[in-house]
């Protein structure tokens, strides 16, 4: 049923084989083909730039005022690449294995291998663009290590790697805009996907309806293919490390139109975020995972110490060394503080639930740099993490050079997303998904510094090939008009949705509902889930959603600059998405990666997979509002890798 | 973009020119200051007069003078133009005045610059216009100029009187090379008698005379203070505009700017003060 279109041949030759046998579009025909790219993050910007450079006609859309503001910019730590510049035994094979293992054996082998294969090219590309990666004194590139890996393969630009990579891609995009191959539409949000039937009766993605956020007017754009690079849906939890405007609506709109949604329950909780401090809080700030290279995570050994810390009677530095429990080093001697994110997050939650948490809420653990400062000196620590420390101090008003930082896990990344095949095409022909918006490469958990790698791999090195393969038979289609019944209908549907929200005239704000939804999701569909919590979540979400549709208040008018309307439209989709996440989590009666079912754990509280029953990608098909979705399974066949228990202990 | 539009002068080039013209003026200030210091020399003005004579007659100096004036006018025009342009880039201003921590220097450039222009006109009235014969002043002439007149021509009695008076009043320099402190009337009489004689402004005595009046001294001190404020910003600003500011030596430029400013202000100020207090 689900054809993942994995090319034949040995794993290491699949991508080469694909490229040599794929269909191409000749240069003269390229300019006759229009492509829509939604999103200007790493995946979107790099795809649009590469496609524009190839000669296609590209329209690119972003909701912010500039492409450079996409949330890829906030990625701090780095980007992985199997360059083996450090001579520490890295290779494509090892990056591939680490990623598969990090993803708890729930990722598609062929995609991950391709990702590892092109990872080195990404670094080459970015350096050529002038990305100022950190350098050694000899002028060569420097690397750092990251969670889930035993080699140093992470390239970084201080604590702003995402920013620098995005600015690189933004530069490439800007160049194409200047050349006229790409047209930029800023402050535009995709509100509908337009499908059209071909002469052969096949329905294809042919355009989108966008809301011009400045005027509130709807605009139509047609193209031969649509690329979705709109990021993840972590904001369904309200509090997350995502930006305020990051949302899952574009993907969800496509899902409603028939694109399958895969593995929605795989949500990554990042272990090193600044803890929540009040109910007015609007977002959580991530502290780069790279901090775990030198920082040591601990909580007090004694409960009474923890209580005193919470009450403010003791300070972290008052706790004697022997009374500190470096629980990650204790539980995972081989990886220590560098265990993958899901493991570190759950361990923190476990300690806090057991009553050892610190901070005023008891929902925090210490990340201590005392040893690192002693060992390396304050200057070195400052050079490595200065901006992160400064950021922490700005937010918390505490000096991390003197007192340990306090951290707690927060929702960060969603491994789930639109189901795509090897070509990154969704189940709707002509609709492609890249970056975090698709589900492809990370399985049940993403390793640190791999999101940037995947976004750029998709945009620079995968889509420019696979899109051509798709477009090669589109050259005869000709220009696609926007004055068709399909566009009329799609636009009307959007207007109706907007009008419906406007007409409610309720009493509560959008944020009120969003916070409530976030609370349900975090409590019952968060770091650990079970049948009971998930069932409860389902009821609560249903209740909240019906209340939303009765009592939400959207001020202002439709055809104006109206951020409340934007938020309401997104939240309406989040309810459906939340329901699907819950359903997916409920159906997957195993623990794997970011999905932890308390019913399925080992004796010492680690995830316990059920490979016999759940070795598949769960791709869901939309069946209408509030209807149970249909499950399609893509079986994962590991031909190359030997499946093992994910073990970071030894 | 239309490439031809690149030809029009960019904002940076305009700034460069402003700085370039200013640099000439900055260098000139040093010259001017050094020359002024001769006024304080206890030689009855011999050195200063010799210098003034050189400055007034040397052809290169005259060319330089034109360049200098050009610099001044262009500096002034371009800077005003930029100021006018810049004001248009924020049609609606802020309600709250800026509380950004910055030096005041650049914000005062237009004000100090305008004040300087006014001061300069007065200064010219006092000294420079005498040279151009726009206004009357005190003059000096070389004694030898009286020797080369046409021997056949009778020297008028009036001229002889004036000449003798000058000598009697001790207005000849010690080496008898110059006769100085000649008033306009005296000059006119002598000039008629000795058409060949070249009278020059006697800046030394003019300065000594003016700087013995307290309110003129005060005005000049104020003038120098404004110059100080203007170049305090201008000096380092020129380096910045020339792209000569760098992490390695931005501190040095800053210090140089302060030193230069104080040297110039003090160098100028010491003359009127010195004269006034009889040094």
């Amino acid at each position: 049923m689900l054809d993942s279109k994995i090319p034949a041949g040995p794993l290491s030759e699949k991508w080469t084989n694909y490229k040599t046998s794929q269909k191409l579009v000749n240069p003269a025909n390229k300019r006759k083909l229009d492509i829509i790219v939604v999103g200007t993050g790493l995946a979107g910007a790099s795809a649009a730039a590469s496609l524009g450079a190839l000669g296609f006609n590209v329209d690119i859309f972003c909701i912010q005022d500039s492409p450079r503001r996409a949330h890829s910019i906030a990625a701090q730590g780095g980007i992985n690449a199997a360059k083996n510049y450090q001579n520490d035994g890295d290779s494509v094979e090892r990056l591939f294995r680490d990623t598969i293992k990090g993803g708890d054996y729930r990722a598609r082998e062929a995609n991950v291998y391709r990702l590892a294969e092109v990872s080195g090219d990404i670094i080459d590309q970015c350096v050529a663009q002038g990305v100022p990666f950190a350098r050694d004194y000899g002028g060569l590139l420097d690397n750092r290590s990251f969670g889930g890996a035993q080699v140093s393969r992470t390239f970084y630009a201080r604590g702003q790697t995402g920013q620098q990579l995005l600015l690189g891609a933004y530069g490439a995009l800007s160049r194409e805009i200047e050349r006229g191959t790409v047209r930029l539409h800023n402050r535009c949000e995709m509100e509908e996907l337009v499908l059209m039937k071909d002469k052969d009766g096949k329905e294809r993605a042919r355009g989108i309806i966008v809301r011009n956020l400045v005027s509130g007017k709807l605009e139509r754009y047609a193209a031969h293919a649509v690329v979705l690079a709109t990021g993840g849906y972590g904001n369904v939890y309200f509090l997350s490390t995502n930006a305020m405007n990051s949302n899952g609506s574009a993907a969800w709109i496509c899902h409603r139109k028939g694109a399958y949604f895969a593995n929605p329950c795989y949500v990554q909780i990042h272990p090193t975020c600044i803890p929540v401090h009040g109910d007015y809080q609007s977002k959580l700030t991530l502290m780069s995972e790279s901090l775990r290279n030198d920082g040591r995570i601990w909580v007090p050994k004694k409960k009474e110490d923890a209580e005193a810390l919470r009450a403010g009677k003791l300070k972290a530095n008052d706790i004697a060394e022997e009374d500190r429990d470096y629980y990650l080093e204790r539980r995972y001697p081989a990886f220590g503080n560098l265990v993958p994110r899901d493991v570190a997050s759950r361990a923190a939650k476990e300690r806090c639930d057991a009553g050892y948490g610190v901070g005023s809420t008891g929902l925090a653990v210490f990340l201590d740099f005392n040893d690192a400062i002693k060992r390396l000196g304050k200057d070195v620590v400052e050079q490595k993490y200065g901006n992160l420390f400064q950021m922490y101090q700005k937010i918390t008003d505490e000096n991390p050079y003197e007192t340990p930082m306090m951290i707690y896990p927060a929702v960060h990344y969603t491994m789930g997303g639109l189901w795509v095949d090897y070509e990154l095409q969704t189940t709707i022909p002509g609709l492609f998904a890249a970056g975090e918006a698709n589900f492809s490469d990370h399985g049940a958990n993403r390793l640190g510094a791999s999101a940037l790698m995947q976004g750029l791999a998709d945009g620079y090195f995968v889509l420019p090939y696979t899109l051509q393969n798709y477009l090669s038979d589109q050259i005869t289609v000709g220009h696609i008009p926007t004055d068709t019944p399909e566009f009329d209908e799609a636009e009307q549907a959007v207007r109706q949705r907007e009008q419906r929200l406007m007409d409610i005239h309720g009493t509560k704000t959008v944020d009120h509902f969003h916070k409530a939804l976030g609370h349900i999701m975090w409590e019952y569909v968060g770091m650990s889930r079970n049948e009971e919590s998930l069932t409860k979540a389902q009821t609560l979400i249903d209740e909240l959603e019906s209340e939303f549709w009765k009592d939400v208040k959207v001020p202002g008018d439709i055809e104006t600059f109206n951020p409340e309307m934007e938020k309401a439209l997104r939240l309406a989709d989040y309810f459906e998405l939340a329901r699907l996440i819950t359903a997916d989590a409920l159906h997957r009666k195993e623990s794997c990666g970011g999905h932890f079912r308390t019913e399925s754990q080992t004796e010492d509280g680690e995830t316990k997979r059920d490979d016999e029953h759940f070795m598949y990608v769960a791709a869901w098909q939309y069946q209408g509002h509030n209807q149970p979705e249909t499950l399609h399974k893509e079986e994962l066949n590991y031909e190359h890798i030997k499946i093992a228990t994910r073990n970071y202990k030894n | 973009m239309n490439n031809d539009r690149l030809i029009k002068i960019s904002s940076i080039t305009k700034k460069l020119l402003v700085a370039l013209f200013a640099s000439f003026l900055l260098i000139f200030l040093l010259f001017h200051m050094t020359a002024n210091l001769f006024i304080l020399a206890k030689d009855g003005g011999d050195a200063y007069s010799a210098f003034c004579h050189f400055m007034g007659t040397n052809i290169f100096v005259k060319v330089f003078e034109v360049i200098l004036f050009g610099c001044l006018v262009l500096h002034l025009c371009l800077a005003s133009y930029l100021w006018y342009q810049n004001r248009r880039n924020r049609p609606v201003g802020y309600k709250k005045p800026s509380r950004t921590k910055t030096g005041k220097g650049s914000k005062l450039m237009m004000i100090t610059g305008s004040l300087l222009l006014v001061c300069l006109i007065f200064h010219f009235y006092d000294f420079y216009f005498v040279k151009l014969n726009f206004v009357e002043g005190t003059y000096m002439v070389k004694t030898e100029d009286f020797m080369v007149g046409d021997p056949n021509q009778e020297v008028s009695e009036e001229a002889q009187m004036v000449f003798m008076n000058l000598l009697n009043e001790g207005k000849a320099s010690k080496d008898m090379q110059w006769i100085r402190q000649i008033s306009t009337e005296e000059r006119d009489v002598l000039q008629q008698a000795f058409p060949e004689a070249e009278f020059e402004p006697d800046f030394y005595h003019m300065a000594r005379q003016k700087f013995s009046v307290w309110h003129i001294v005060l005005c000049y001190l104020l003038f120098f203070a404004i110059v100080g404020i203007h170049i305090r910003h201008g000096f380092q600003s020129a380096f910045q505009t020339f792209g000569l500011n760098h992490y390695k030596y931005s501190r040095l430029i800053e210090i140089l700017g302060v030193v230069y400013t104080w040297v110039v202000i003090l160098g100028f100020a010491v003359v009127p003060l010195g004269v006034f207090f009889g040094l």
Partner: protein
Amino acid sequence: MNFTLHIWRQENAQAKGRFETYKVSDISPECSFLEMLDILNEQLINDNIAHPVCFDNDCREGICGMCGLYINGRPHGNDDGITTCQLHMRKFNDGDEIWIEPWRAKAFPIIRDLVVDRSAFDKIIQAGGYVSVTTGGVPDANAILVPKRFADMAMDAAECIGCGACVAACKNASAMLFVGAKVAHLAMLPQGQVEAHERVKKMVCRMDELGFGSCTNTYACEAECPKQIKRQNIARLNREWIKQLFAGNHKK
């Protein structure tokens, strides 16, 4: 904490704006400035007082460059090296009057309330703020050696988030620090050398065209830059400009 807010309200680009005064109370000192505005908006919606105040914001961790308010006479408020979203209410005194204005510059027209259109910055970058490489066919990353010192200086300049505080702070609404940061970033790297002359020429000309002012070396931009990008980058821009003036022109 309680505050009196004077906020610039303007319905759209054409409308005439005015200041409106609102009061907020019981604000936690730990609250960020934008969260305080969230609370205000919640209040405005719930009590039917007015349309919520529109202001740009996104990442809320000081990196996207989306937020930018002119608060009590300073872009990004009364603290150094931060964006508006990193400003916390503990920096204010209880009972303070806070004036909140949008960026003011001809090149940044107002969209609504405190939201301005900064696409002029994009246009400057489009003029040449990049290295023209197409995807693929580039040398190995380690084939290009960059002295660490240069890489660090390039990074210092590249940290610019394009928020526009420099323009907002500048009395001339000049974008020299923004342009200087990009030009300096690429000028420090071997990759940027090939197009160095063309880049600075095009970017500066575009900057002039878009209605940004010229630099009068006041350094208000440096004082307000949330990423503390230094004035030396403007000097480098000037230097690159001079080099370009004397560099060979490809046109005949």
